[in-house]
């Protein structure tokens, strides 16, 4: 039987998810529940349908095709019953204004591989390749690693964007077919980590030490969220830990709250902090702290 994955999205010409021009596959399902998550549609491992009410014109096209009668209209108002929805994607296909959006499609490794090959010329001309991101791609280990294995046979560069909250054995398997690890590091303090993401960070730290010890190319990505992990103290502690490892680069990714409408569309509670995107000066100051520990740290904005 063909190996499949549930993909949230596929992005061709991804420029900021690893080196060069890349195709990025975003898998569904994540073991963490970061309060600032800007991809809330990636948390659940199952397909979901988003309903963007502001765009809806109540034309009724969705009702006509829905096998689960999840769409109804009362006094011109479109009511969407997410619990009944089977996430088949038919309403998305017919919606003329993109008010319905299916998050999560089943894709075979062969299909993903064929799509990845489409832009091979671009990878070769930019030292790019393929990234699997998420969610947490190793929650769909079989899909992700099978895809990477196929890509490595074609000598295509692979990058894994992971939160590293996975069994070490899984990472060990990933090492064989992964050219670069893009690893999130959200807080140096385990208690704070648990408060902000739902999980402590011991496993993540251990996995980073493991990857480093095994010669993996590692880029650390720190979501830089005001009031959550942007304190100088956390940067110092982060620098002290990462500085002891073999890390190629560290990117500080500025927080933004553009994803709020996705929380509404998916009918899940919005946990995003009420905060402005941090200034470049603030990010530069944090990067400077990390640089003291010998890290090649910079803003992910530029």
């Amino acid at each position: 039987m063909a190996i499949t994955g549930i993909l949230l999205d596929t992005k061709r010409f991804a420029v900021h998810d690893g080196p060069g021009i890349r195709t990025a596959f975003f898998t569904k399902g994540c073991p963490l529940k970061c309060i600032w998550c800007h991809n809330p549609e990636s948390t659940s491992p199952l397909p979901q349908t988003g309903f963007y009410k502001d765009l809806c014109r109540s034309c009724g096209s969705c009702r006509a095709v829905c096998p689960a009668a999840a769409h109804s209209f009362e006094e011109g108002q479109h009511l969407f019953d997410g619990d009944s929805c089977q996430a088949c994607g038919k309403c998305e296909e017919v919606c003329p204004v993109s008010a319905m959006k299916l998050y999560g499609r089943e894709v075979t490794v062969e299909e993903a591989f064929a799509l990845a090959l489409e832009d091979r010329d671009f990878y070769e001309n930019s030292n790019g390749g393929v990234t699997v991101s998420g969610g947490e791609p190793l929650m769909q280990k079989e899909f992700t690693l099978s895809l990477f294995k196929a890509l490595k046979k074609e000598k295509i560069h692979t990058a894994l964007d992971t939160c590293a909250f996975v069994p070490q054995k899984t990472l060990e398997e990933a090492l064989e077919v992964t050219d670069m690890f893009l690893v999130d590091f959200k807080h140096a303090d385990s208690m704070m980590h648990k408060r902000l993401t739902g999980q402590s960070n011991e496993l993540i730290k251990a996995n980073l030490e493991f990857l480093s010890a095994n010669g993996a190319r590692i880029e650390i990505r720190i979501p830089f969220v005001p009031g959550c992990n942007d304190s100088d103290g956390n940067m110092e502690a982060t620098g002290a830990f990462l500085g002891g490892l073999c890390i190629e680069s560290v990117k500080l990714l500025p927080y933004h709250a553009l994803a709020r409408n996705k929380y509404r569309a998916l009918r899940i509670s919005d946990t995003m902090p009420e905060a402005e995107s941090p200034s470049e000066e603030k990010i530069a100051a944090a990067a400077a702290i990390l640089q003291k520990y010998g890290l090649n740290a910079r803003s992910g904005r530029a």
Partner: protein
Amino acid sequence: MLYASFDSDREYLVNKFRKPVFEEGTGVSQEEIIEHILEFADTLTLQDLPKPVIKARCFEHVCQQMFIDVNPHDDFPGFGCYDRKKRPLAPLVGRWNYEVDSTVNKERAEMCWPRNSAGLHMIWKDFDHSVPDWDAMVELGYPGLLERLEKYRKLHEEKGTLTPAVAAHFEGMKITVNALLDHLGKLIDFARARHAGNPRIEREIRCLEQLRQGPPRDFYEVLMLIYVQFYYCEHIDHFQVRSLGGNLDDLLLPFYERDLKEGRYTIEDMREFLTCFLMQWGSIDNYWGHPFYLGGTAKDGSSLYNDVSYLILDVFDELHIPTPKIQLKVAKNTPRKLLDTAFRMIRDGHSSLVFVSDDNIRKIKMCYGYSEEEARTCNVTGCYETAARGIANGTGAGHANFMKIFELIFNDGRDPATGYTVENCGALKLDEIKNFDDFFKSFLRYLDDIIEVIIKCADGNEANLHEVNPSLLYSVTALNSLVTGRDAFSNGNVYNVSSILLCGIGTAVDALMAVKKFVFEKKELTLQEFREILKNNWAGAEELRTRILLDRDKFGNGIEEVDFYAHILAHYAGRKINMRPNARKGFYAASGHCARQFISMGGKTGATPDGRLAGEEFSKNLSPTMGMDRNGVTALIKSVCTMNALDLPGDFPLDVMMHPATVQGEEGLAALRGVLYTYFAKGGVAIHFNIFDAETLKKAQVEPEKYANLQIRVCGWNVRFVELPKCEQDAYIRRAENIAE
């Protein structure tokens, strides 16, 4: 620095070609000259003089009559005939055009006009896109060109080939160059009388004196020569001068190095000259811009980019003006530093830069008969067009409207707006079309008709270019014109190529796919029902229109079965056009560039099956319909490169729009390089980038005063976004809304 006065010069320079002020007594106004030019020409016609001589005498007359200025705020002289829309010889050229079209070209002109009005095509006599032989000009200067002219005139005399027509051609060129030199003398006299002792003016006087006596000797004199040739040829002799100096960096390099070595000028001095030089075209500010190019490849395979390239880019960047527009010839040897400099400029909104592939131009040109040397050293002659340096003249003979064909099919050959009807072209009546194959074949039959009529009418036009507008100041630079005794613009060059520009291929593919899928595959409606919907401009069928617009099968998304049709259309048209002999002892070439016709022909084209409303623009150049490429730039390039650039030897341009977020930082530069290299590796020839987001454009629409310098690449040129009509601004915003971050 020589003057350090740019801040105080800027106002004069900006207004020089917009609202200049001239001293009374130095001449008469442009309006007055144009009003009386035919009276003056009549006195010559009565003497039974040949046309080249009449035109040359008129050129001389204009030079003697117009206002002049030599100003301490400027390194280059000012002229009364500053407004290109009122060029003084326009009435004369118009009269001769009428004479030709009402006599020898009457039948074809009458065939052409109603079809032009109906928007099937746009055929005209193109007097644009010529590039003088800058190498000969710099080597010989005007006096040397005159000597060379005299030498060849004598040779014709000795060989017995100095026919009256040849003699008139030589006489016309000689009068014109002498008139130009006399006028330089007048400028010098004026400068001495008004500004003696001013060091800047003294330098300008010495410079002009040198051009009267011989070739340019230094950096400033070369710039002056280019400016002078441009001005007299474009504004008075009525021929557009493209590519200012060719690859300006290479042309200037020996002078730059010598001036530095001999201590004549410092780099800062030359920067000042370049600033003032570029500002001339910044002031002229023609909608279509003025090009020159940089770089190229030397015979030994090394890059021609040099210190002057960077100096020019730096000055251009500082000025932030939409024109001149600069093409960058890119090959494997192009320094990464050069590319990154250009990409940074584009990313910062200075997008009047186009990248063209040295290797692919060379390959295409050699396939059409150029030698390796001729192909490698090609000039970029307009927006994207290329032609052999110093020995070629290309014209844009006609534009073919691919979208009009749908109106013809749905109305049995009749253009609904004008009533013009295409007959007997082999297309089926709508009721006879039973399947998509029938529909597609009918499409090709109408395309045949359009192409054949363009060629027939263009032949009629182009056999008479020298009768309508003898080229004198351009011809004198072209050696082959002297050797053959024929007009260099018309038929006297080594390569006389006429381009037929194909407009709307991308949207035509979308429309074909809509018919294929919705009529013949899904059977949602009949062709007859579609005809009624289109006739009503989609009124009452909005839901169908939305579904067609949202349908995935659109050109530009890397969908093989869709892009297949783009390949077929380009190849089919190319096979019909390329290498067909033209009336200028040259051949026709198909071109993927459509200038502004994607807007103006769109205005003459009714609603089409792709969901386009009547009057809306269609796809420009080889790009998809605005907003229809939804799979990103890699898919876009894959689609476009399914067309073979060898089928479109005239030019092969692509417009790419990208969101600023995707190209930020060093990763962004690397990505842009990757896009460029891949496009060229796939056979693409010219590419330019618009980098902006919909939000910025919307803000600019609301508060234009805050975004006065926001530039948009329209087609082969840049304009200020805030100066576009709202409908065009909206089209860019719609397009930008589809670009992924």
